[in-house]
């Protein structure tokens, strides 16, 4: 039974991989890397795939909860995955958002402070935190789209100041909360962890919103050639503005997830350096930093790949301090694969053969 399950899983995975390759889908490359990592674990880390079904409860309702290393990977990758969804769109319009980590801290601080000090209801706290993220996004969008400041500088401002604002909100304290609804965002299970479900919902909604409507097309147009798009009558300003607002919104969700997960708002450390992980996931996913075409699902797979890599190293008892080195090698390899020169070299090799 067990073995049959494993075989079916790998057959489906292989078929999916083959299909993505056939249809020349960009998601093939990060998926291939992820598959290689999993195959490595299949042979060298036997405990990696051990899954366990436990009884649990979700606000009194009995639900099954899956436990195991793969579930951990999904759980831990979802923060960066949520960030990566927003970041993908920002990078697609040729921008970058360095402030997402700080915005996460602001959202977390907002939620915890409102809940603990003003004792507001959880729904209000969550809405306020999301609102804070949207306002932060509007600020970035204003600087980039209206004032025309280069995105890296524009978002650097909030990256520096945002953490200060978050500390101002919490008054420099680490605010601990234990409201069951607020703590469930990052800790509850509905078969799989809630953060992963949030990421999945966000991904699907964003995909529908961009691909079923013309929004995705317009975003790609702005990223590809802003002047031409503008001449064609598209308000590239408002597209850019909206994209940054959406990225702030995603950052707020990620902030809620992390704050809820550790049951406290630590303005100094929430989301610290996660902007880099998010950018990395997007680039691994195949969206070029120069803007243009974007691939939402592929970015999320990039986030999963980074987390799977980290988890694998922990499982293999690689000291956590060494972990940055393989990460660096992965970034470099992905960059190289995207480089014109390497592509041409590979193509000429293929033609010669």
């Amino acid at each position: 039974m067990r073995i049959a399950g494993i075989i079916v899983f790998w057959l489906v995975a292989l078929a999916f991989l083959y299909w993505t390759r056939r249809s020349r889908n960009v998601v093939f490359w990060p998926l291939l890397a992820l598959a290689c990592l999993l195959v490595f674990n299949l042979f060298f880390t036997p405990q990696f795939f051990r899954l366990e079904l436990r009884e649990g409860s979700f606000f009194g309702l009995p639900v099954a909860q899956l436990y195991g290393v793969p579930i951990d990977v999904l759980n831990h990758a979802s923060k960066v995955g949520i960030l990566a969804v927003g970041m993908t769109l920002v990078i697609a319009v040729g921008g970058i958002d360095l402030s997402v980590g700080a915005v996460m801290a602001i959202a977390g601080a907002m939620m915890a402070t409102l809940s603990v000090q003003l004792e507001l209801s959880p729904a209000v706290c969550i809405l306020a935190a999301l609102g804070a993220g949207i306002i932060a996004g509007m600020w970035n969008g204003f600087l980039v789209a209206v004032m025309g400041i280069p995105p890296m500088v524009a978002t650097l401002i909030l990256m520096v100041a945002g953490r200060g604002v978050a500390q101002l909100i919490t008054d420099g304290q680490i605010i601990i909360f234990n409201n069951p609804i607020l703590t469930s965002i990052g800790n509850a299970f509905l078969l799989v962890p809630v953060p992963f479900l949030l990421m999945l919902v966000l991904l699907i909604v964003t995909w529908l919103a961009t691909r079923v409507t013309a929004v995705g097309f317009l975003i790609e147009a702005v990223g590809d050639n802003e002047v031409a798009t503008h001449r064609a009558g598209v308000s590239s300003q408002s597209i850019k503005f909206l994209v940054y607002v959406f990225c702030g919104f995603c950052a707020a969700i990620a902030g809620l997830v992390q704050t809820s997960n550790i049951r406290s708002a630590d303005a100094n450390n929430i989301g610290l350096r996660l902007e880099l992980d998010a950018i990395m996931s997007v680039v691994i996913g195949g969206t070029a930093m120069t803007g243009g075409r974007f691939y939402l699902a592929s970015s999320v797979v990039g986030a999963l790949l980074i987390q799977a890599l980290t988890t694998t190293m922990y499982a293999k008892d690689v000291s956590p301090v060494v972990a940055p080195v393989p990460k660096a090698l992965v970034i470099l390899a992905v960059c190289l694969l995207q480089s014109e020169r390497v592509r041409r070299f590979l193509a000429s090799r293929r033609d010669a053969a």
Partner: protein
Amino acid sequence: MNSRYLPLVITAFVLALLLGAGGFFFTNFISFRVIINLFGDNAFVGVTAVGMTFVIISGGIDLSVASVIAFTTIFIAQTVNNGMHPLVSMALVLILGLLFGAIQGWFISYFNLPPFLVTLAGMFFARGVGFIINDISVAIKHPFYSETIRGLAIPVAQVGRAVVRIPFTAQCLIFFILGGTLLAAYSRFGRNVYAIGSNETSARLMGVPVDQIKIWVYALSGFCATAAGCVVTFYMQSGNSSSFVGLEMDAIAAAVIGGTLLTGGVGWVAGTLMGVLILGSIQSLITFQGSLNNWWAKIFIGTLLFLFISVQQLLNRRLKGR
């Protein structure tokens, strides 16, 4: 006056304002000792920012500097404690930094990769290698550190019974700023860097060896970062591979406040020095004030960044509009 220099003038004005405010509210703020400490304590940021200025003028960015500094400190601490002479160790690590930067530059120019990503990889790599050398803080025990470096401080004034000395770290900063200014303003290399930053394509068409210059720019940044790491060991007397996370953003902020445009082509090393001093004096003001919290520094620096960038943006529009 050429309006090109307006950002530089504004930066100088803000620095004077900050120091003036400090002198107005706190006695002893404008004393020899505080000013010298401002140079000495921020020397490593300044030395890093000199290299960063060149990278930004060329139109790139270098995120790896903080990790390179951390790597340098732990490398020196570990090798010196194992019997190597500090000077040999420093020479070695400076060469390593130069090479590391050059390799990053090679990836950026030869494969035409975005500098942000390559140096991000460099950041993780240097941090990881530092951790592999040693993952705890290591004190440096060597007479060179405890005696020679202290002896290099230059006495400049006598205040009461105490002698005010310019520490060696401040001397390093001044040396790098002077060297950087000369290199940027009066060398062929400097002019080529400005040319690449303004318009890479036309620079290439005019015969600037763009790829070569880019490699040198990142090599210079790596060199400055390792030199900053050496400076850090002078006054911390220890090495730590987990220190200075996020310092690259301070260096970038210093350059931006100093009037360097992140789009490339415009910038001054002297402006960067003022940017570093502004960041440093905000910190000392908050230390002097005592009851203000550290987060106000972050908010204040963010506000300053916003002001400077807006002014630059407006100036740019006006210049282009003409």
